[in-house]
């Protein structure tokens, strides 16, 4: 992979998915409020399988990050 940015993106999205999965595992439901502050608040209840799917997608993405050769830091040094 040429761009270290892309590699970092894999790591970031993998960690994000894992964190979101753990968060969904802990909570029962979330209340979604609109940014504007006005309007209806919606309750979001994730399906039972959703946290595990997010965790597995995150794990696969992080594993992919690990298998991509070269570190992001060394690529930055070359520039």
């Amino acid at each position: 992979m040429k761009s270290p940015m892309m590699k970092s993106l894999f790591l970031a999205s993998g960690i994000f998915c894992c964190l979101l999965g753990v968060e969904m595992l802990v909570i029962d439901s979330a209340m979604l409020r609109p940014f504007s502050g006005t309007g209806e608040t919606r309750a979001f209840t994730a399906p039972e399988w959703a946290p595990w799917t997010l965790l597995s997608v995150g794990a696969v993405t992080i594993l992919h990050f690990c298998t991509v050769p070269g570190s992001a830091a060394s690529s930055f040094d070359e520039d």
Partner: protein
Amino acid sequence: MIQTATRPDHDTVLYDGQCRFCRSQIALLRRLDVFGALRYTSLHDEKVARDFPELPQERLREEIVVVDRAGTARGGAEAVRYLSRRLPLLWPLALPLHVPGSLPIWRTFYALVARNRYRIAGRCDDGSCRLPQATPDRSR
């Protein structure tokens, strides 16, 4: 998934009690179920036909079925996936089982093992899986 009218108190695992392989897997499941979240019933138990008439006997013979507390019945690979979520000791297994798009692979693998289960460990027709009968009280 099949919706049953009966809503059991605990998640109920229905398995083939005449299959050595299934019995060994249930014994393993009992050890992994440290919080006692599951109940186990052999499909040959008359309670099964009475409590879950919606579940065809052919399907119960083909695959393990788990009926959750909401009355939803999952079979085969989906049941294993559900159990991996329910039992904390199986959480490491839940990750590969929940990879999006991987369910057909697990279904195929489950069907392969289920088809050959008697070949893998044999049947209980010889009575080897039967519980020992109570000996009559000779003190009287």
